[in-house]
Structure formats: C-alpha cells, structure tokens
C-alpha cells in the first residue's frame, strides 16, 4: 500500500477490492489475448502462402518478351492471375468471376482441358476459347473445383501443340491453328 501511495494512489477498501478484481481480470484477459493473437497469426499465415512457384515468376519475363499485351493463355486460376498481374496478359481463368457470363461453364472446360489425356479434345477447347498458349507449371492447378495434376502427355502431340518454353519448373506450349 505504501508503494501505491508513493505514486499517488490512495485506495479505500472498496477501491482495493476493485483493483484486485481488475488485476485478476486483466491477467485472465491477457492470457486469452496472448493465445488469440498467436492464433490470429497462425490462421492468417495460411493465406499468405505462395501458390505460384519461383520458376513461374521467372517465366513471366519470357512471357513479356514472347507474347503481346492481352494475349490469352490457358491457365488455372492462380496462373491466370499471375500472368494478368505481372505481364498484362490474360488467363482464361482467374480474376473477378462475378462479372463473367457462364463462368461456371468456363471453369468446367478449363478443368477438363487440364485433366484430359485427349490432345484433340484439349486442342478443340483451346480453339473454342481463342487461346494461343498454355501455361503449365509443375504444381497442382486449380480451376474452381479441386486441385488437380496436369495431364502433360497430351501437349507432346505435335499435331496440336508445340513447346515454346521449358524451365523445368514451368512449360509454355503454343496452340496450333488449323
């Protein structure tokens, strides 16, 4: 109590009771505050994880030098957004889905494009959407439904596609016109 008086605090019995209550409450609250803060950072950490790879970032330089502004690529959502943000090219997926008519059909077609083993079918889809190139990173891709592995074998069919770029981490294929 003397210590409190020294710093100018005079506590009556009621005030002392209130001070004890406050200290206990503060300890309880600070205990939960500590864990809430840690949990907050933990939850947010998952949302800042990189999806695109370093090789993809590096490959955007090739895209800048070997394609034109607004050129449309076959991409997953994250690949499309990387290309539009870094290079001002467009992906057939990625961006503000709310404003696009028949957007679910477009997602479904993109999903099929990456999943199918049928090169002809993939080529037809690419032409239907006027795509000129395919962005195929070495990671799983997401087209709005589930994460999936790219069926890459179809792109080696030179009737429909030709390889334009390969860094080991990402390949870019050209879509052949008929």
């Amino acid at each position: 109590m003397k210590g409190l008086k020294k710093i100018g605090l005079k506590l009556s019995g009621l005030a002392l009771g209130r001070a004890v209550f406050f200290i206990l409450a503060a300890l309880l609250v600070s205990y939960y505050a500590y864990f809430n803060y840690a949990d907050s950072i933990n939850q947010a950490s998952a949302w800042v994880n990189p999806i695109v790879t370093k090789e993809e970032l590096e490959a955007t330089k090739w895209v800048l030098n070997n394609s034109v502004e607004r050129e449309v690529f076959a991409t997953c959502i994250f690949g499309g957004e990387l290309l539009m943000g870094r290079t001002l090219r467009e992906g057939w997926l990625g961006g503000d889905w709310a404003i696009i008519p028949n957007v679910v059909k477009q997602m479904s077609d993109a999903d099929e494009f990456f999943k199918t083993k049928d090169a002809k079918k993939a080529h037809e889809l690419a032409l239907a959407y006027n795509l000129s190139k395919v962005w195929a990173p070495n990671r799983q891709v997401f087209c709005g439904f589930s994460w999936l592995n790219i069926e890459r074998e179809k792109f080696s069919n030179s009737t429909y596609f030709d390889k334009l770029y390969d860094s080991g981490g990402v390949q870019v294929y050209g879509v052949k016109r008929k």
Partner: protein
Amino acid sequence: MGETEVFLLAVFFASLALALVKDKRFAYLALLAVIALSANSHMLVYKNNHMPTFGNTFIHVATERHFVQNGFYPLDRDYSYAGLAPNSYVPFYRSAIAVTSSLLSVDVEEVSRAFVMLFALLLPIGFFLLGRKLFVEIAGAVAALSIVLMPETLIYTVRPLPQAMGLVLLPFAFYLILEKKLWPSILMTVIVSLVHQEAAVFLAGAALFYSLGLNLSAMLRERKIVLRKESLLPFYCFAAAAGAYLLWHYAVVGNFNIFGLAQFKYHEGAKAGLELIITKTGLLPVVLGLIGFAACAFSWLKNFLDEKTSRIVLVVFSALAAYAVIVIEAVKFDAVLGAALAALAALAISFVRIELSLEKSAFALFVFIAAVGAVKNDVVGVNVFMDRFIVYLQQPIAVLAGLAAALAARGKIVFGGRK
C-alpha cells in the same frame, strides 16, 4: 510468438491499468502498444519474396499495372477470365495504388505491400477513435486490441486487397457519422463504397439500421410516430453508399442489375454458425463483445422500461438466446461454450449500472444487429457471402468488447446521459 509480442501485451495491460487509476492519457500508450502488435502481425505480408497471391490479389495488380503503364484506368475490358466483361470493380483502391506507384516510381506490388503496413497502423487507430467517441479512452484501447486479435480481420487486412482498405476506413466513416459531420460523413461513405463492394453493403446496412433504430427508439419512448432529425444523417449515408455503388455499376456496365452478378446467381459463400464465428473472431473478443452487447441492450431498454423490467427482459432474452444456440449447435463444444458464456455475461451485466445516451446505445446495438443480419442473410433467403460478412460483424464486436472492458474496469458507466 516471441518476447516482443509478450512485452507489447504487457505494456498494453500496464498502460490500461495506469489509465484507469492514474491518468486516462495512458490509454494512448496502450494504443501505441496495439499499433505495434498490429504492425507485427501484418509483417506477414513480407513473409515471401513476392506479395501474397492467394485470394485473387493479382486481379487488382493487373488493373493497377495497366493504369501505370498505359496511363488510363481500363474500364471497357476487365482482365478477368479472358477479358469477357467490362471492368466494373469499384476503382478507388486500385487507383490509389496506381497513383502512388506512379508518383514514387515504385512497382505496384511493393506499393501494395506498403499499403498493407499503412492499414496495419490505421486499423487500431480507427477503433480507438470509435471506442473513445462512443464510450471512454479505455474502451477505445480495448476495441483497438480486440480488432487486432481477430483472425478473420487479419486474414483480410494482411493481403493487398480492397477489402483491407474498406475494413480500415469503416471505423472512420462511423466516427464521422457519430460526430454528425454531414458532408465529411457522406464523402467518406462514398469513398468506402468505391473502395470495396462488401464494405459498401455493410456501411449502407449499418447506417440504415442506425437511422431506423434511432426512430424506433424515439417511437418506443414517446409512444407515437416520430422522425428524429439525428436519424437523417445516417439515412443520407445509406443513400450515398447505395447510390455511389449503383451509379458506378451503371456507368461501367450500363444497367443496375447487380443481382445478375455470379455471386448472387451461384450464391457464393457458406453458412456461418457460432463455431465458425468464434474460430474466426477469437474467444476473448466474442465473450467481451457479448458482455458489451448485453450492457448496451440493458442501457437501451431503460429508455422505455423501468430498470427492474429491463433486467428481467434482458435475462430472459439471454437465456432464450443461449438455449437456442445450444439446441441449434448442440454437438459443437464452442457453440455450447459461447452460448453459456453469453448467458453468464448477460446475467452478470444485468446487475451492473450503466447509462449510455440513446444515440450511443442505439448505434452500438443496431450496427451489431445489421452485421448479424448480413452474416445470417441465408435466414431470409439471400444466401450470399454469409461467412464473408463475419469480418464486418467483428467491427461492432470490437467496439462492444471495448465497452465491456471499460465497464469491468470502472464498475459502472454513465456516458452522455439520456437524450
């Protein structure tokens, strides 16, 4: 979590204690500790060697980069999904990044990350001002801490997104409304509406509910239909928010059909129960927020009922609400815990003296109710973005948590008196 965070939390609580017993200006030291905590958690934006990509961050970068490189904002053709539609996303956040990038000659991605850090500093300041305006400095400090503790708020403010800017500007918009500054309020409302659509929806709804709440309160008290002149300003803000967004949409798209957007058509979003809300908000802010809500409701009820009846109504209502939550989400531990705490909080608070002005209690109550309505919009069949609105519900929860802390610290609260 390391020593720095523990030290900052210790500084916060020590400052709060000194603000209570010595000098209320110590609350500003507590605010500084919260700002440091906010900056610390938002440093996540520098975790990788490029800005976060998750959550469609790069769609905004595309328009920003286009603006910087080509000197104009691309309205006729969005970059999304192969450029099939006009660029109808509201433009202020993107323009702010692009203009800053041009002025400083710094890449838009780096400016975007710097903006996140700016938002980290402004977020607690906004809630401190709002809590102080409504209640006292201690309430402001705890409101600031509460918003910084909330995972969902961090998730949306740590990524370079218009959501982040909208969430940060909202408390300033509310502050101006409470200050009754007509044109600054309307200007800020228009800015928020053109920063982010969901923020616009929340601000419009909150302003409308506050306006209606003021009139409802007056009608209940005076037992006749009245129009309080204080209700006009928030109503103008509602109209400004709705008008600004609709006019922008019309200017770009050529129609007012916002319900034709895919988000409405496909009902984007998931239902949000209490367990999800607690997970995304944190137990401490939820509990404090519920205590604050109960206190606020009690103070508001006393405008129309005598004190004893108000307590009875509140306790009965709380018990029914707790029972309903337990029944609805019986299998979930957090739901049972949350409901039990809500009932306990309401019971405890009903023995405490509190007297807020009608305006302040109506603001806190009806903004909270508007936010709950947004989160539970599935109940009325809208079914859009229910879980996405949790982050907006967190704003009134933070303010009410501040009230609860001030109440616990002071034992009773008399702010502003009845009007």
